[in-house]
């Protein structure tokens, strides 16, 4: 195969032009990406974006309609899930209710024909690691949510796989337990040094644990990158909107003077400094973002200039507040400020303010 | 996985039914059935007044039994669904399942003892000065037997469908000053219509095909269609004629079932 030559030893999974259709419905559009050996990769998107289908194709629970999937250098299309070593932790956990905790953990060893004694020994090692050895003979129904989570992890890891798939495993837990389990997962992944592929709709889960994040929408990969890259440099308006922390301004590129581009928007012209080599012509539509913490608020009567917008709401976020403005043409702009700064402004909803920012705070979206 | 059941039902359910159609065109000669393609059996049965009398009698029994059972059952189902605590409801439902595991024949025999001229009911009646009356070997006897047969099933099906009636709907109706009876008739019955109709349909099917009550409580003379089938079958090799009666019954049931289901799922408006 030509493709195998491009698989380097630090790539464990390769999706090569993979398409998945269910009847006429396209669940995953043509997608290519690599997963690196030993990384914690999160696939994130809202429901129906194709993230779970992508994971299930990797697990062998769905077969790609077109394209190839390589696992550890081997093309695995059509290879049954029971012949792969790609254990998964399920959203519902899918623990076997008629088996004890230890029997659950032993399950995949039993399926592989491992003898009874060795099975018990290996299962107990993992129960110990997950700190649930004392529950070995209990029924699943007698465990708490967090304990079940640990059983599911032990059950998936007992064969010591190179890769672990996780499908929204924390979504059933309450907020407090969720944070604790995130730490457990992060540490586990570092200790074991194996690849985790983690599907979630939660940005906080993805960004707090993952080395790299894939953002998907409507069956398409929108962006792949580290949490930092994605957060500060979203690739397009979809990702920017999905993250929800920045304000998007659309306009037309009217002038290019070296690294100083002029974009005409509904609020007038702005100078921006694009990053990288963006090939754009004057007259092309272009968007840039300004994050909420980088916008300044002044009295409308002051000589600051900028966009005049009416304050329409305020949201309390710990030490700071997010305030919402509406411009004359109905666009919503959000700004994050400390309570102290807002008090100094005599801030009140219903009043008009002027909003400004530095041109260095603008980030031009590579795709519009 | 799917094949054993498929094979069994094709070989032992579908095939006998299809065979039944086939033999209705066969002839019987010297007490032997011979394959044929002959309309004589159909002609013979369908031109007989005795068949049509039995047909109409069976229809009437089944219709009356279905309607009467449904009417008796509904207040009971309503009480089970809306008036009992969960615990009591479970017990009552359990009680109603028990009859399915008792022999219908034994129950009918027991009813004979209750209903006969010198039986328990007449003995009780004469004690309070009411003259005895004939109940066994009358259409009344048949009806009692059919109701015994159908009542538990009809109540269970009605309770099942009443379970899906949105409780808020009932309170909303009360809140809109809809009276108790009107709420039952105009909110609860329409909401549970599918289940009520299906329950009545089952009562109809059971009564239509039953030969035990008409025979041992109704006296069997004049016969119903089921009695005709047993008589013809057991008294010789005239299975082709019996199969014509059976096929008439099946087609009637199909038409009734289709109409009932259509009525049950009928859309309101337009």
């Amino acid at each position: 195969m030509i493709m195998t030559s491009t698989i380097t030893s630090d790539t464990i999974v390769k999706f090569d032009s993979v398409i998945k259709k269910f009847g006429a419905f396209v669940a995953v559009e043509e997608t290519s990406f690599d997963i690196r050996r030993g990384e914690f990769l999160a696939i994130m998107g809202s429901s129906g974006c194709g993230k779970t289908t992508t994971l299930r194709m990797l697990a062998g629970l769905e077969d790609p309609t077109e394209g190839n999937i390589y696992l550890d250098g081997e093309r695995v299309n059509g290879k049954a899930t029971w012949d792969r070593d790609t254990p998964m932790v399920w959203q519902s956990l899918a623990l076997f209710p008629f088996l004890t905790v230890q029997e659950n953990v032993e399950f995949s060893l039993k399926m592989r024909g491992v003898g009874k004694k060795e099975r018990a020994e290996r299962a107990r090692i993992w129960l110990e690691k997950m700190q649930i050895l004392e529950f070995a003979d209990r029924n699943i129904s007698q465990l708490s949510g967090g304990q079940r989570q640990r059983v599911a992890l032990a059950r998936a890891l007992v064969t010591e796989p190179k890769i672990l798939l996780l499908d929204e495993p924390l979504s059933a837990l309450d907020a407090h337990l969720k944070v604790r389990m995130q730490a457990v997962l992060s540490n586990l992944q570092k200790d074991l040094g194996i690849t985790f592929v983690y599907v979630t709709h939660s940005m906080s889960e993805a960004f707090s644990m993952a080395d790299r994040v894939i953002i998907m929408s409507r069956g398409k990969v929108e962006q792949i990158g580290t949490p930092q890259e994605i957060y500060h440099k979203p690739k397009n308006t979809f990702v920017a909107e999905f993250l929800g922390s920045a304000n998007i301004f659309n306009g037309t590129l009217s002038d290019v003077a070296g690294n100083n581009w002029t974009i005409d928007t509904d609020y007038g012209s702005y100078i921006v400094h694009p990053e990288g080599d963006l090939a754009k012509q004057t007259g092309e539509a272009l968007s840039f973002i300004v994050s909420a913490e980088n916008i300044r608020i002044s009295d409308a009567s002051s000589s600051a200039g900028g966009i005049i917008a009416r304050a329409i709401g305020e949201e309390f976020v710990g030490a700071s507040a997010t305030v919402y403005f509406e411009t004359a043409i109905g666009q919503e702009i959000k700004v994050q400020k400390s309570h102290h700064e807002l008090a100094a402004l005599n801030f009140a909803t219903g009043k008009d303010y002027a909003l400004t920012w530095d041109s260095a705070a603008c980030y031009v979206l590579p795709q519009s | 996985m799917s094949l054993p059941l498929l094979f069994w039902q094709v070989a032992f359910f579908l095939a006998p039914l299809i065979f039944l159609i086939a033999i209705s065109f066969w002839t019987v000669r010297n007490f032997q059935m011979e394959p044929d393609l002959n309309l004589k059996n159909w002609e013979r049965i369908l031109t007989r007044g005795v068949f049509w009398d039995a047909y109409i009698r069976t229809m009437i029994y089944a219709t009356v039994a279905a309607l009467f059972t449904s009417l008796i059952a509904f207040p009971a189902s309503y009480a089970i669904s809306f008036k009992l605590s969960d615990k009591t409801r479970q017990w009552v439902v359990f009680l109603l399942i028990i009859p399915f595991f008792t022999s219908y024949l034994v129950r009918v025999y027991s009813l004979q003892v209750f209903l006969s001229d010198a039986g328990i009911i007449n003995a009780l009646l004469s004690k309070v000065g009411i003259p005895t009356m004939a109940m066994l070997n009358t259409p009344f006897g048949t009806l009692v037997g059919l109701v015994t047969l159908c009542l538990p099933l009809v109540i269970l099906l009605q309770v099942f469908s009443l379970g899906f009636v949105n409780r808020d709907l009932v309170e909303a109706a009360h809140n809109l000053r809809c009276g108790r009876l009107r709420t039952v008739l105009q909110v609860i019955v329409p909401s549970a219509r599918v289940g009520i109709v299906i329950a009545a349909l089952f009562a109809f099917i059971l009564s239509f095909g039953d030969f035990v009550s008409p025979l041992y409580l109704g006296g069997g003379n004049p016969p119903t269609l089921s009695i005709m089938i047993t008589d013809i079958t057991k008294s010789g090799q005239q299975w082709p004629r019996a199969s014509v009666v059976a096929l008439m019954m099946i087609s009637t049931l199909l038409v009734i079932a289709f109409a009932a289901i259509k009525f049950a799922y009928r859309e309101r408006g337009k």
Partner: protein
Amino acid sequence: MNTNKNPLIETSLRLHLVACIAFIFLPILGSFAFSLNSDRFPSIPLGAFSTEWYRLIWEDPFVWVGFFNTVKVGLVVALIATILGFGGAYTDYRFRFFGKNVYLALALLPPTIPVVIMGLAMLAFLSRVNLSGHAVSVIIAHGVMCSPFAMAIIRLRLSQMDPDLEAASWNLGGSEWATLRHVIIPFCRPALLAALFITMAVSFDEFAVAWFVSGLNETLPVKILGFLQGQVSPRINAIGSLAFLSSIILIIFAQMLMRNPTRTSK
């Protein structure tokens, strides 16, 4: 709702319910009472207590033959119907295919066909293929009639299963057969046992089709039908009461299994 209660309506509804249950149970309880009564044809006042009828059936060799036929048929039917029903239930749960509705209709329709028609069709067909008049004919017919009940019970249990459970087993290295054996069947075990008991109870009580096809191998219910056609015989009550007790024990077992499907701790 409390303010809307009318004591008269409440009471009469409850009385009606009690009357319905009384009506249903009167013949059943009556049969019990009559079986222990010395009168050949009981009336008011009831005769003396007697176990005569039980003695008579105990000593009747034909009743014993019928009993053993019934048990033999019932056991085999329960096994066959449960296996067939499990296959059907799993098919319905797991697969989607062209013609599935036809498959389900074929699987579930038999109880809606009147027993006389079923009996006639079975008799005609089975005697054509030389299978009529044996215990095996009753087993075949009861297999057809009981498998829908088994299928319904097992299907209900499958619908309570986490749909990921099966895929989880595959994912952990279990092939489809291994998964069936180690996951699906253990999960369905309470329903499988319940189906065994219920189908056995249904077969124990079925008389009409059995009467058509059994020939000389009469089961007990067919025996009862014979008694019913002949002289007045309170032996029916005695047999009926015993049969009722055994059926009730079967369904209480089934009920207990269905109600408490989770495995108790060791």
